[in-house]
């Protein structure tokens, strides 16, 4: 009761705490969600259509890998393989767009891109992701130094694909000067996957075959994104939490006079700490919920912001949400209760006088 009164009768202070916690929590949510979203999108792209991935041996990044496309026939000849396709992934300026994903693929993979209009590309043609197509009204576009006719528009739930360009692997090979970035293989029986990985590995000493699951786990780009996002999230998290603790501590210190009066009236330390505990709890939980809602709204809007070409996407996991909730509560309570505890041990008249000074 007193906790609610204190919050409602000090709207400016309450708003200050509320805003500080909200902003700190949102920063934590957005940074960690966006990096998780980027990793999620790329993982999904690789995982969707293959069980095994073949890359160049010793090259841990699909952008730099070069695999001989002629391996496709040998792979398809292995018992237990139900299909395979090759792909080149790259990035290039497209028309006035500074950078977009380029996906060169064998024809048997075109059906992965759901056509919304037009037809799949022939040589010298491309299809555009719906997100990217909004930027162009022309019938052809420049990709790198070459001009391509736009033969259609496709739809994809994956932001990287929705903002990208798909072309024949031969055209992509000329652009990026390689045979294939990787080959994705589908298997008939999942239980045979380890044997098939071994069989494929024996086809050439220049290749490395892995299950897509383990590839994603070990993929260098993801490790870079994960590590840098961990550092940024950790900094945002620490700064946000320190901010919460500082604001709470300042607010508590500004209420020393009130605590002194309460102690003079015979209220126990426990009474003061208890009320402050509830005030902090009410404030941090409501700010957390508000930050969570705002973050979810922003994360939902991100893929639809044209300027971002669908490349920025966020995934907020339950684990992150829970971790942030616990950390927020702990830091807010530490920030408020430690100075309150110290204050409660001070002689009441000194608290009153400190509050006045």
């Amino acid at each position, binding site marked *: 009761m*007193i906790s609610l*009164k*204190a919050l*409602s*009768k*000090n709207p400016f202070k309450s708003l200050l705490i509320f805003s500080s916690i909200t902003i700190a929590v949102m920063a934590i949510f957005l940074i960690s969600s966006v990096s998780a979203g980027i990793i999620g999108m790329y993982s999904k792209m690789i995982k969707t259509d293959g069980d095994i991935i073949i890359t160049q041996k010793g090259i841990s990044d699909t952008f730099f890998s070069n695999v001989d496309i002629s391996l496709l026939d040998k792979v398809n000849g292995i018992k237990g393989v139900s299909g395979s396709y090759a792909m080149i992934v790259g990035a290039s300026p497209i028309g006035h767009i500074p950078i977009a994903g380029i996906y060169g693929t064998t024809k048997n993979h075109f059906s992965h891109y759901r056509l919304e209009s037009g037809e799949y590309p022939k040589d010298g043609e491309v299809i555009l992701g719906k997100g990217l197509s909004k930027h162009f009204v022309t019938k052809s576009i420049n990709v790198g130094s070459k001009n391509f006719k736009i033969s259609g528009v496709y739809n994809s739930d994956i932001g990287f694909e929705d903002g990208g360009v798909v072309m024949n692997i031969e055209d992509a090979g000329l652009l990026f000067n390689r045979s294939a970035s990787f080959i994705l293989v589908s298997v008939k029986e999942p239980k045979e996957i380890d044997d098939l990985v071994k069989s494929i590995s024996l086809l050439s000493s220049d290749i490395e075959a892995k299950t897509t699951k383990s590839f994603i786990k070990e993929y260098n780009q993801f490790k870079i994104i994960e590590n840098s996002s961990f550092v940024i999230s950790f900094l945002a998290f620490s700064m946000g939490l320190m901010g919460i603790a500082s604001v709470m501590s300042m607010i508590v210190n500004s209420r020393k*006079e*009130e605590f002194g*009066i*309460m*102690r*003079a*009236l*015979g*209220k*126990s*330390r426990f009474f003061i700490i208890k009320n402050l505990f509830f005030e902090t709890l009410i404030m941090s939980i409501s700010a957390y919920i508000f930050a969570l809602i705002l973050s979810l709204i922003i994360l939902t809007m991100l893929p639809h912001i044209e300027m971002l070409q669908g490349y920025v996407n966020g995934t907020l996991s339950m684990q992150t949400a829970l971790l942030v909730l616990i950390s927020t509560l702990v830091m807010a309570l530490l920030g408020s209760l430690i100075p309150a505890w110290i204050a409660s041990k001070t*002689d*009441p*008249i*000194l608290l*009153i006088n400190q509050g*006045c000074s």
Partner: protein
Amino acid sequence: MIKVSNISHFYGSEQVLYDISFEVKDGEFVFLSGDSGSGKSTLLSILSTLLKPSHGELFLDNTPVGQIADIDKFRQNKIGFVFQFHYLINYLSIYENIALAALDDKKQNINALLSDLGILELSARYPNEISGGQRQRVALARALINEPKIIFADEPTGSLDSKNSKIVYELLARALKQGTTVVVASHDLKVQKYATKTVRLIDGKIQ
């Protein structure tokens, strides 16, 4: 009832009270007088258990204050305070300010006490919505609600005009008649009129 034994006090390295000793009997009206900076507020804070003395001992009801098991409960049960600047809590209404100090079995008396002090109509208002004189009467109601054995008042009329000052002193005198011990620190010599005992401080020493 109150026994002050060789009390000295320092703020940092500055000594403000020097070896103070005196006694106050039950039902006395004690006037702690002295100029600004003489140490009377510090002494009143020590007497009222709001400040621990650097040296010496204070006895309340023949018990050393340091040996009182629950000093918070003791304060709530037996001591009432009136400060110069009322120190009401701004986010609580007048009624709630008094209820905050009241023991559970005394809460039923709040309205009667407010009525007695002529401020019942203010009970739903907040401290910033009433005048300085009214605030001091509320502070007095807060001090009286638990029918304490001792009331300590530090410059209770320091921020009041003469009319309101008179009201406050008359209310303190009325508490005295009901058996409450009253200790007032003030440089206002009008308090002398109500006092049964005067302790005059000069530069931290009893004159």
